[in-house]
């Protein structure tokens, strides 16, 4: 059946072309952002819009980045991400392990509580969390910023699912050899959980880096802003200068895109592993 194969081959080719075209369209805003970030301040206001800058103006980057303390923003974002990752991985692993391994009083009630917390949208907690952090003197401090992010019901739930699926033979063997519960957890269970911990850390990092509303309300001074909020306020300040804004946007996006490209396979696996993010 040569005719059918040819038609099928053509269909395959068309589908491949469509896939490539679709991916390129998805990438278009990024390319446009990169191109604009290198344009002259007035070059952008011409019609038809120049698709590539006449001569790349690299100074846009240092100029835009020195207009606001972007270095400080990045440090703040990194600190927030670091605390979030460490906090959520540590508490998630410990609590998930306890739920998966121990028969203890109050287990079902407590787990129901965690499941309930999973359903509470962040926006409902925004105002009271702000008031509590404010009362403790944490507004506009690093401690206030990171305090609410240290634990997530999601990470506990995910680690519980992982430990439930993990065979417990090695742990039992260690217990018979006389290891304490902490030793079993630390030396046996945690090393085995490394892939799950990596996925959890990755998701926690992305979430922390992307978080906007909480850092927006809990920080006030320029020195405490994170990248996301800093970029937004830069946008308000340099409203008419699109190349500057695009340069700031590129700078804000580069770290997270690099992290994504380096860890891409964890993402797909993580979404499959956890039954979706």
């Amino acid at each position, binding site marked *: 059946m040569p005719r059918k194969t040819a038609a099928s081959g053509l269909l*395959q080719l068309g589908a*491949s072309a469509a*896939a490539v075209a*679709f*991916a390129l369209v*998805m*990438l278009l*805003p*990024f390319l*446009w952002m990169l191109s604009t970030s290198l344009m002259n301040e007035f070059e952008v206001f011409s*019609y*038809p*819009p120049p698709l590539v800058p006449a001569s790349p103006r690299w100074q846009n980057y240092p100029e835009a980045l020195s207009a606001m303390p972007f270095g400080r923003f990045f440090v703040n974002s990194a600190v927030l991400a670091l605390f979030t990752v460490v906090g959520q991985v*540590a*508490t998630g692993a*410990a609590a998930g*392990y*306890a*739920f998966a391994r*121990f028969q*203890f*009083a*109050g287990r079902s009630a*407590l787990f129901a*509580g965690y499941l309930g917390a999973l*359903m509470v949208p962040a*926006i*409902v*907690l925004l*105002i*009271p*969390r*702000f*008031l509590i952090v*404010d*009362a*403790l003197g944490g507004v*506009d401090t690093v401690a206030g910023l990171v*305090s*609410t992010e240290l*634990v997530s019901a999601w990470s*506990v739930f995910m680690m519980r699912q992982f430990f439930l699926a993990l065979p417990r033979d090695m742990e039992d063997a260690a217990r018979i050899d006389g290891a304490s519960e902490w030793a079993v957890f630390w030396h046996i269970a945690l090393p085995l959980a490394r892939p799950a911990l990596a996925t959890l850390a990755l998701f926690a990092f992305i979430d922390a880096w*992307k978080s*906007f*509303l909480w850092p*927006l309300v809990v920080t006030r*001074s320029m020195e405490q802003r994170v990248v996301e909020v800093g*970029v*937004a306020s830069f*946008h308000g300040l340099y409203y008419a200068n*699109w190349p500057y*804004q*695009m340069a700031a946007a590129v700078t804000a*996006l580069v770290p*997270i895109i690099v992290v994504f490209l380096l860890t*891409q396979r964890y*993402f*797909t696996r993580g979404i499959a592993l956890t039954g*979706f*993010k």
Partner: protein
Amino acid sequence: MSLPPIRLVASIVAAGVCALYAVVTVTLGQHVTARVAYARAAHEALSVARIARTGTVRPPLTVAPLLSMGSVVRVRTELERTYGRAVGRIGVVDRTLILGSGRHRAVVVPYKDADEWDIAGAVALGADVLRGVWTLSLIAGLAAMLACAQGVLAARRLAAGDAAGGHLSAAGACVALLLGSSVVIVRARLEILVASTAIGAASDGIRRLDPTAVPLPSQALATIGIFLVALAAVAAVLASVWMSSARRGWTHRRETWTAWTFLAPSALHMTVFTVIPLLFTLWVSFHDWDLLRDRKPFVGLANYREMIADPVFWTALKNTAIYALYVPVTMLLALGAALLLNRPMRGIRVLRAMVFIPTVVSFAAIAIVWQWMFNADYGLLNYILRSVGLNGVDWLGNPSTALLAVMIVSAWIQIGYQMIVYLAGLQGIPTTLYEAATLDGASRWQRFTRITVPLLRPTSVYLFVTGVIWSFQVFTLVYVMTEGGPVHSTDVLVYRIYQNAWEFRRMGYASAMSWFLFALLLALTITQWRILNRRVEHAA
């Protein structure tokens, strides 16, 4: 001689730990209260300084050494030593001065010399809430640990038949508890004494002031009360767990104890930052809650009534619902993309990554990029539209298209995520089904509608409901791209909540709206569970 049973010793130690805990909680509460009052005094003094605007009082000492001295008494002694004579309290007519800014703000209260003429010195009160609590907690914690260790030791020794050693350890536990609590109490009393002296010094200067005109740094007392109640609740839960595990024997108890130590950090955090806030926001929603005002009167259901009567709220709700419509449209596109990218092909991983990238990147930067894309005169989108012969649109400037523009961006962001989930779903469909259908002569379209679509239904339900829940919480895009405008055409619920709470300073009203949103989303989630569970039952 009969030995005291292990259980009795354990109970005594447990009771002691609880007592110590109670003491710590109460003293911490007093301590914090005093600190807050201290900060309030400082803040009121700040207002005096602003209103009076004298600027003539020059404190002879710099702030830093004053702060390091800590107590008013010592500062006063220091001043008297420096000037060689007694210094008097500040009079009513004198002013209070504020130095520093931000977290290191200090109030400087000038002191007059003995003949009430010259300014002899100044006392600085650091508005540094909660300093010193950590030391207290550390002492209390150390004492409790020591007591516990001694208690366990006592139990072990008694079990081993070493009566004398057991009693010694039990006594040690008691001593540790006693010492711990007395140190805590004495220290807290001292702090409170210092704080109240400081408040006395500061409040002398503010007698002429209308207290309602003074904005406060925070409304702390109610919150801190709730915080302490939370701690007490955790303690009560732990105690009841402990008691209820009693009948199941020593190993069960040990397992319970181990499990709770694993769980304690997250459970405590959940209590303080999830459970309490949930109830607290309900409490706030019944009040006229202005962050900057001291009085927060109870108003009953007035906030909810206002919400129902507020046309902007209904507009926001309508906009949010319309906005959520992008979810099913995006799902169709994502399914198409998943089918396109679910084939063996060179560079398929690169293509998938390209589609997925918008999902991981941050919203604020993306919103700026898209605002530029949507620019009416020079944006790329209108350029493309014009070059194919259509008219350009003022996307974000026109009330009838602004929401659509936000929806387009959201679709662009979400499509990659939904595609990955669909890909996982597609790869879970056994290929044998397709092979059998092909053998039976089913066409490509029939295979799609009869096999792919039905088997993907759980995935679709999941994506739809989570997508809708997610879309009801949209904020960043609106905040950066449109600020709810033009004329409220992109005003959504979360933006309403944000604006009321932080721009109009109406926390009570915003809390009422967030409880409404919570109820709405809860209903959605429960619906999702129902649908998915029904599916599972059918399958089973």
